[in-house]
């Protein structure tokens, strides 16, 4: 009898321990505090800040996703109303430089060379005003824009120019302008994705929008040291906090698995079997689309 009770207990224990090792791992949550304390952000090392700036997803990736989904190009998504000659402060100029950088990526991916030359001239003006034009090889970008066969060179030279500006600003005590440029790039990529999702609510696109929760905290970390710098930064920080609020209840969970690899053409192809799963209601998505549109439009009409 004792033996039977022992075996029964063992069986129950095993059952529960199996349930605990569920394949679903814990999801992504924002850190406990609602806002990142400024003192914490100030402690970030230059390497950590450089890492954050590299984390932000490229608008080229968003444009690539749109092309994969066969979403047609639309001029209406672009920040055409930005007049580079009417930007008064460096804050405005750096934000717009980022926004136009994202538009340039979108145009390049869709090979809209005529429009990209217009955007390029605005980028040139803003970068001259911010004294970072030395990192743009405008003539090469123009030449490559006209030659559609060199898309990869065009992407490389455009993205590399922005990376160099970012690095230069951070290492020359103008980190606040680098942060603004990065936020501008992200915001415009987010605008592009949300505008398309409002017309073509494809699951993978909506997931990508939900997944931006992962890097939103990094954006806040990046801008936090400057929130009290002036009124423009204070407004921007408030806007990003509003974004965070809209994302608070978006859930990202993960399932586990081991990668599968095969050799192919001298390289290795690895398929990840772990997955991330986004749980976002229609209302949450609508809120995110609305807040993105509102914040982005308030910035470009300045």
């Amino acid at each position, binding site marked *: 009898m004792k033996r039977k009770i022992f075996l029964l207990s063992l069986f129950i224990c095993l059952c529960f321990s199996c349930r605990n090792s569920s394949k679903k791992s814990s999801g992504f949550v924002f850190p406990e505090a609602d806002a990142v304390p400024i003192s914490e952000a100030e402690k970030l090392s230059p390497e950590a800040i450089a*890492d954050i700036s590299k984390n932000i997803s490229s608008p080229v990736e968003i444009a690539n996703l749109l092309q994969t989904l066969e979403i047609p190009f639309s001029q209406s998504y672009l920040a055409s109303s930005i007049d580079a000659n009417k930007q008064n402060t460096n804050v405005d100029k750096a934000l717009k430089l980022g926004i136009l950088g994202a538009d340039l990526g979108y145009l390049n991916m869709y090979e809209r060379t005529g429009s990209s030359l217009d955007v390029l001239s605005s980028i040139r003006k803003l970068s001259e005003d911010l004294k970072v034009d030395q990192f743009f090889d405008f003539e090469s970008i123009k030449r490559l824009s006209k030659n559609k066969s060199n898309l990869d*060179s065009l992407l490389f030279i455009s993205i590399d120019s922005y990376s160099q500006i970012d690095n230069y600003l951070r290492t020359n005590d103008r980190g606040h302008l680098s942060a603004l440029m990065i936020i501008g790039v992200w915001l415009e990529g987010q605008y592009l994705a949300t505008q398309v999702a409002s017309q073509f609510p494809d699951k993978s696109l909506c997931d990508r929008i939900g997944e931006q929760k*992962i890097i939103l905290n990094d954006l806040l970390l990046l801008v936090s040291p400057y929130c009290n710098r002036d009124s423009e930064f204070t407004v921007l920080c408030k806007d990003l906090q509003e974004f965070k609020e809209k994302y608070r209840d978006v859930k990202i969970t993960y399932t586990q698995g081991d990668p599968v*690899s095969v050799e192919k053409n001298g*390289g290795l192809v690895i398929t990840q079997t772990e997955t991330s799963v986004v749980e976002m209601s229609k209302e949450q998505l609508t809120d995110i689309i609305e807040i993105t549109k509102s914040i982005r439009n308030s910035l470009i009409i300045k």
Partner: protein
Amino acid sequence: MKIYFISIFILMSGILSYGQAVDQLVNNCVMNAGTDAKYLKDFRIELGKASGKNELRYKANMSLWKNTKYRFSMCNSSDSKGELILNIKDNTNKVVLSSFNQKTGKIYPFIDFICNKSGIYQLNFDFTDGQQGSGVGIVSMIR
């Protein structure tokens, strides 16, 4: 005074030619990533000889997104003693890919990674056996 200027000139020439060599290496690596690859980022790595065999020394973070196929291409400069290798860890510190097979010693010049879990990943680069070297890692998207 002359020697001073000559020294500065030689030093500056050296820096400029090194910069040009790195740029050339990056350009070549981007161009050789494949016709189906679209450039996203590059990581320029220059390391001396390691004092011990520890973890891969050059670390950088990057966000990778679900339903995207990435290509990681590694290129070495001709004067490198070791070959550039890469491993990538996820946010739980689990290795999701490595360009170096420790069992066979095989080094892969590129890895295609079909990402199904969005997140911030840690890219770790080094040269084989902790050797001195310079190289570049290119991240591209594949259609």
